[in-house]
């Protein structure tokens, strides 16, 4: 068992990192531990936990801002926001169950470090877009800050963007400031029977190009729809496209009616009301609609989805569903399919033409050490990645190799 440190203040965390730097000792950074099995496996002798750097230190609903320690549980943040009818608009997912763990174990630090986002990404942005400021300890053993508590801020480099999605390889965050937004009063989902990816992508595109302010668009082939806990979805016994509208009551009703009308040319339409909508989009957000096997996450140009899915089906016999109007493809490659790299080569080759990236989200430690977990970068971009790592963590002591070998 690695030895674990549990600093309670930024200064303590800094002292521990400074010690590690002096001894060139690698540290694994953890929060709630719910995403420890994502990324390349780490084999450090020491773990530094952000669990005690927790608590909401500032929440001003009228100013749309919240500040919290990275170890603050997402459940606590959700509850506090709920009391004021607010939310983190990027719909942070909970991958606990997807990765074989319990739900509700995630922390705000983990959500930011992974730059995660749910179905509303297409309208509201990802974690990066709501991340206003932070304090962190760099691998140089120094406490530094960037950003602020206001939305409009271009003072200096936007280091928040680098920290979001760096998986703890650039610094241990000790304080996080995020933008919060009002939660919608009402939610409706229009379901459209779309048997194939081509018509589904066209239907989603129509919805997203309409003035009806669609906040999510997904497509579930029949196998994925059958796994839903929402009876209207599972019971449809058909592949379904789903388009969500949110907002004030009268507006949601009007837009839902308009979308039902406009999208009926693609197939039979149904609608989900608030409760079922919430459940359904949570399943999409948390990737609960896939079977066993290795899970890949592909971010691609939305219009490329049908072509990519065709290849995945033919060459990998994969199961999948689609979010972000086609821009996000979730894939499971079953045991025995996809060969030694569980489809890495097929997947990365098929997305190369249109651009995008594929990451390995659920896989054995062995596979994650053999196959690039994050999208391989072009030589000059990777050079920049290495330079950035060196700029924050010159001795490579923070989560070394979690994203790329030697980074």
């Amino acid at each position: 068992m690695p030895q674990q440190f549990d600093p309670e203040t930024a200064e303590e965390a800094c002292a521990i990192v400074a010690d590690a730097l002096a001894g060139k000792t690698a540290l694994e950074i953890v929060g709630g531990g719910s995403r420890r099995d994502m990324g390349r496996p780490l084999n450090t002798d020491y773990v530094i936990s952000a669990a005690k750097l927790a608590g909401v230190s500032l929440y001003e609903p009228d100013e749309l801002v919240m500040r919290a320690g990275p170890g603050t549980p997402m459940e606590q943040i959700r509850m506090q926001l709920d009391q004021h009818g607010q939310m983190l608009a990027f719909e942070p997912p909970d991958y606990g169950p997807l990765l074989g763990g319990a739900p509700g174990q995630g922390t705000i630090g983990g959500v930011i470090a992974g730059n995660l986002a749910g179905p509303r990404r297409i309208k509201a942005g990802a974690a990066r877009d709501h991340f206003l400021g932070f304090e962190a300890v760099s691998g140089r053993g120094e406490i530094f800050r960037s950003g602020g508590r206001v939305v409009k801020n271009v003072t200096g480099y936007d280091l928040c963007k680098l920290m979001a999605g760096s998986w703890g390889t650039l610094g241990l965050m000790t304080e996080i400031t995020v933008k919060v937004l009002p939660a919608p009063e009402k939610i409706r989902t229009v379901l459209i029977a779309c048997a194939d990816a081509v018509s589904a992508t066209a239907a989603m595109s129509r919805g997203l190009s309409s003035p009806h302010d669609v906040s999510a668009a997904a497509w579930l082939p029949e196998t994925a729809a059958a796994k839903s806990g929402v009876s209207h979805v599972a019971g449809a016994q058909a592949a379904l496209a789903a388009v969500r509208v949110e907002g004030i009551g009268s507006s949601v009703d009007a837009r839902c009616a308009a979308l039902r009308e406009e999208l009926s040319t693609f197939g039979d339409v149904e609608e989900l009301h608030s409760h079922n909508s919430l459940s359904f989009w949570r399943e999409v957000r948390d990737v609960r609609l896939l079977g066993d096997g290795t899970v890949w996450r592909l971010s691609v140009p939305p219009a490329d989805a049908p072509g990519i899915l065709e290849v995945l089906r033919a060459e990998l016999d994969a199961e999948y569903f689609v979010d972000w109007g086609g821009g996000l493809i979730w894939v499971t490659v079953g045991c025995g399919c996809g060969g030694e790299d569980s489809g890495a080569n097929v997947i990365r080759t098929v997305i190369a033409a249109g651009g995008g990236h594929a990451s390995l989200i659920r896989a054995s430690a062995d596979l994650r050490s053999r196959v690039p977990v994050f999208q391989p970068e072009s030589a000059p971009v990777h050079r920049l990645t290495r330079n950035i790592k060196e700029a924050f963590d010159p001795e490579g002591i923070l989560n070394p190799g979690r994203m790329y070998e030697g980074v």
Partner: protein
Amino acid sequence: MRMPDPDRDVLSRRTEIIAALRRIVPGEGVIAEEEELRAYECDGLTAYRQLPMIVVLPESKQQVSDILKYCHGRGVKIVPRGAGTSLSGGALPLEDGITLGLGKFNRILDIDYDNRCVTAQPGVTNLAITNAVEADGFYYAPDPSSQIACSIGGNVAENSGGVHCLKYGLTTNNLLGVEMVLMDGKIVRLGGKHLDSGGYDLLGIVTGSEGLLGVITEVTVRILRAPATARALLIGFPSSETAGDCVAEIIGAGIIPGGMEMMDKLAIHAAEAFVNAGYPMDAEALLIVELDGPEIEVDELIGRVEAIARDNKAESVRISNSEDERQTFWAGRKAAFPAVGRISPDYYCMDGTIPRHRLSEVLTRMNELSDRYGLRVANVFHAGDGNLHPLILYDANKPGELENAEEFGADVLKLCVEVGGVLTGEHGVGVEKRDLMGEMFTEIDLNQQQRVKCAFDPTQQLNPGKVFPTLHRCAELGRVHIQSGQTRFPEIPRF
């Protein structure tokens, strides 16, 4: 404004450098005559001027790459320039530097409705992107007031905002990809038509980097379907406090308006005299609140906002009933800067952001500063997101008045930081706020930012003298000072 010492050796090789650039960019693309260079001596921040050593106007990314590669090997500095509308001196030339203008990169390359994005060369204006797609019902959301002139490449460099960013975000939230050339001439692509990055978010760090990390040669942005309708309220208040309370209550009620702008009395009067928008002349503060979206939603929210305004002592409320009327409401706000220009020989536009609830305190203290410096100040304010634009009125022909205005401005920005805000909301640091960076950041913070600069441009030839008050050599910044924490916190367990 102190800029890095010119490199005498580079200046002595000027003729040779011109010849080399002419081999890369044939024809008229290399400017070396003083009277032609004059057009490039400043950007939108006209108080600072410097003739560039040479101006080069390439037409292809290969030319940009060749220019940078040539300069990289010879220690020649580069100042990238878009439309030259920066209000912070981001494109201020260097005596020993080449100003690299991207004005010839003026084509829209791809309009892709299936993926809802547009790819354009960096010299295309912000407004031209919306113009290219509006017939099909789309638009590009960030709308800086200079949108008719400013370039999309410059928008990326400055992370430009506009009046709609509370609801629709800044450039960084609407940008999908760039192609850019690094100082050593290498061409890289960051992002594309998909969302988010597979590795470090280099696109995010490049956005708002003020031309210090690379030269952008192509930009891909998201386009949105235009809202079905937009209506505005014009609300007069007896004080800035009541107007500020109204703003807080609107947002507290869960309403995010498409735009929410505040003006103070001096700005109201200047604007009204200029465009006759029908603004309430007795109001101490004016709020323009715009709701956009589906018609039924806009109608309902207009009613809710009106009720909140009346609860907060609004003295007058007008609601636009036609597109013409809505445009009239905005006409005064949009003309606020030139309107102030009519009542004063010169004005100096500031750009701090504050937490909104500190507004009345900041305005009170700004008035005290105004008395102390003997200079008037008019305020326009992106009320939804706390971004202040105080306009300090001065006369550059009066000796010492510019310096006085600059000192006043610096005090305003320090005040913004003191109340928990920031130095610049959307105009950038450039040279203007460079020496104030220490008000907001420690030396450790600034050194960490400069190490990012070193990751992209280790020889620091791209736009040096901007953003950072002190230039450190990258080798010096890279050194690790190992200082074990053992002596502190003896109670925590150690290795």
